[in-house]
């Protein structure tokens, strides 16, 4: 079938296992992990696509795809239920000659060349499913086109002492990249790759095929494909991004990012007033019942909750119940979790569908002297009455 040509198709890498999120990704793909009270991590790149005018998105899934597939559905919550384009979930599948799992990020795209070809796009935007940020990809694509770039890589300035944890782009004064270093010991600059790439499709396709033929390649964008394109003398540009961006691939960064949505002037403002809105799949739940007598609340509470206890500086997600006399501080409570009367939770992430029975104590106070210890309770766990979950403990 012939489709109308698309200027840009987005491919969202959502296959990561997210093993550093421990119990939170035991039965859930990382992009499906709840965030900010009612969202899932994947809502952010997906909403960015829609807000940037990109209406064709392929989501590459592999690990625990069921929940993610169900969440994405026909893409209607993001306005991606289109008759031409829209959202397509792309798991690995058996082919006539061979079938295999996605071996790496580049291989995942390679296996879906035929999907991309159907839209005959000028450019392909590669995104990760584990970052929290708001970005207008249209600006980046415009930059890419204006510079007649073959590959454009979004970068952000990180503190120099952290630069060795990232893929670093060393650039000329005009923004063109002359060197790419993956986690360098002695970084020359602090332009860290955000894992967001715009490729000319003709170039990408050529190098994906070459990469696939190289038995020594790990089939990874950062390690193999981008260095190969750079070494062949193509034009690569770095695109500076200055807004909020967070890789929520670890427990502490996931906790931090949630906390950064709080406050009268939060570092990451979920409110869409005047800026791009973040869309999510919504469930039919009544408005929340709130009876909080404490001061200093500073919380986000989503719909379908019943909150009787004291809550401070926390994110309470959709459909949660917090009993009388319960105390929640500096914590993230994921959707549909029940916190019974008298429970104390501090510095913790409580997964979805959990039940924390009366009198349980999770986590501890943060004194500010040592590293903050985040306690984690995995999805659908029951914490027995009066059970104690120590600071930093993972259940």
């Amino acid at each position, binding site marked *: 079938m012939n489709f109308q040509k698309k200027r840009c198709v987005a491919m969202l890498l959502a296959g990561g296992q997210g093993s550093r999120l421990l119990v939170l990704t035991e039965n859930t793909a990382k992009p499906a992990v709840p965030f900010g009270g*009612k969202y899932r991590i994947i809502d952010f790149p997906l909403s960015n696509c829609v807000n940037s005018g990109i209406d064709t998105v392929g989501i590459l899934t592999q690990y625990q795809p069921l929940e993610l597939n169900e969440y994405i559905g026909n893409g209607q919550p993001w306005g991606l239920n289109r008759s031409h384009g829209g959202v397509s979930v792309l798991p690995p599948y058996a082919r006539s000659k061979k079938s295999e799992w996605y071996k790496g990020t580049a291989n995942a795209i390679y296996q879906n060349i035929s999907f991309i070809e159907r839209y005959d796009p000028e450019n392909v935007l590669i995104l990760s499913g584990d970052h929290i940020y708001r970005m207008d990809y249209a600006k980046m694509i415009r930059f890419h086109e204006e510079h007649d770039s073959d590959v454009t890589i979004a970068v952000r300035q990180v503190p120099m002492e952290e630069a060795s944890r990232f893929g670093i782009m060393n650039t000329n004064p005009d923004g063109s990249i002359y060197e790419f270093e993956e986690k360098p010991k002695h970084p020359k600059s602090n332009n860290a790759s955000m894992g967001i790439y715009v490729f000319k499709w003709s170039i990408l396709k050529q190098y994906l095929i070459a990469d696939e033929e190289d038995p020594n390649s790990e089939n990874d964008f950062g390690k193999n494909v981008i260095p190969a394109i750079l070494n062949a003398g193509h034009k690569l540009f770095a695109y500076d991004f200055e807004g909020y961006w967070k890789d929520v691939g670890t427990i502490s960064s996931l906790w931090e990012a949630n906390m950064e949505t709080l406050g009268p002037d939060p570092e990451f403002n979920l409110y869409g007033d005047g800026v791009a809105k973040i*869309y999510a799949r919504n469930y039919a739940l009544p*408005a929340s019942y*709130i009876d909080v007598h404490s001061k200093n609340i500073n919380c986000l509470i989503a719909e379908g909750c019943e909150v009787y206890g004291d809550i401070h500086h926390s994110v309470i997600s959709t459909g949660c119940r917090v009993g009388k006399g319960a105390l929640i501080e500096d914590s993230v409570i994921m959707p549909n979790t029940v916190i019974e009367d008298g429970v104390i939770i501090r510095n913790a992430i409580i997964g979805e569908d959990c039940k924390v029975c009366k009198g349980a104590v999770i986590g501890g106070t943060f004194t500010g002297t040592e590293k903050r210890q985040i306690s984690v309770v995995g999805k659908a766990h029951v914490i027995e009455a009066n059970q104690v979950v120590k600071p930093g403990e993972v259940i």
Partner: protein
Amino acid sequence: MKNIMGLVFANIYDSSLGQLTNKRTLASLPFGGRYRQIDFTLSNLANAGVRHIGVVTQYNFQSLMNHVGSGEEWDLELEEGGLEFITPFSMGVGNNFRGKLEAIEACSKGFLERAKEDYVILADAAVVCAINLEDVVKAHIASGKDVTVVVKAGIANDRKQLDLAVRLDEEGEISDMAVDYAAPEDYLASMGIFVMRRELLMQTAEECVAHNRYRFEREFILQDWADGKLSVGAYEFDDVALFNESTEEYFRNNLAIIEKEIRHGLYRDGLTIYTKVRDQVPTYYGENCEINDCIVADGCVLLGTADNSVLFRRVRLSTGAFVKNCVIMANCEIGIGAHLEYCILDKDVKINAGVKLIGTPEHPVILNRGDVV
């Protein structure tokens, strides 16, 4: 149940809700923080597996159509059946419907006759409840009666005028019927929900309209029952049913859902209430806010104090603002230090800093949509 269709009357009681229904139908009146009244009616039908519904409306229906849309939230966006709006002047009838019977007669040819379902549930949007209509239809079929009306005890009080009230004998059979009457306490009030065969409904409407009878309760149910031509059964509903047939009731019932028993009687397992998705951000509760005993929807920013109130979506409550016993609809903004008690704020109202408005439980202060005070 595949064999049932629904017919919903959206404009009933519009006139008794005053300025709240100036520019909308009663069916599209906001209720309970995030719903419109018709959400309950449509959800009850959807939860009973009804997939073919006509919504009769004749004026002020812009907000209703906008809200209900294609009916996809209720799984009514279907190839076959689904949701249809029935309005005057759209089916060769050149006048407004004077009563339900005229509306039924008007949609007989185009809508009812083409339907495949044997039974029709008639309902309006004035009574807010979560009811298992599948049970009602089963009881109706088992009873062998021509019509079943759903009734509720404890509503009749000698003062409230009821469209239809019935007295039941010891066997649960209707022993007396009263129409447009402030019935005594031992009568049960009709919830406006009727079940009957589609064929009978069409035939009835045709006959009644031919004889200039257009009032469903008075000129069909009561008259034919009294004449011995119609057997009518009553199905008593004993869970929460909130009758929003006047401004005072509407105000009281909005605040009533703050009570746990009433709330839990309305939001029940297996009887989910669906509504149009607005996709708002979770509500932010500020450092110095105090929110006691309130119903709060998504998208609000709350920095002040609220007590025993219902806050719809995107309400902005400024620092030092105080709100008690109020119903505050979507997008309202309450300025710094404002003080509100016993008020209904329609959508998009702006209360300036320091303004003080105090009503009474019987006569709440009502502000119209978009008012700036």
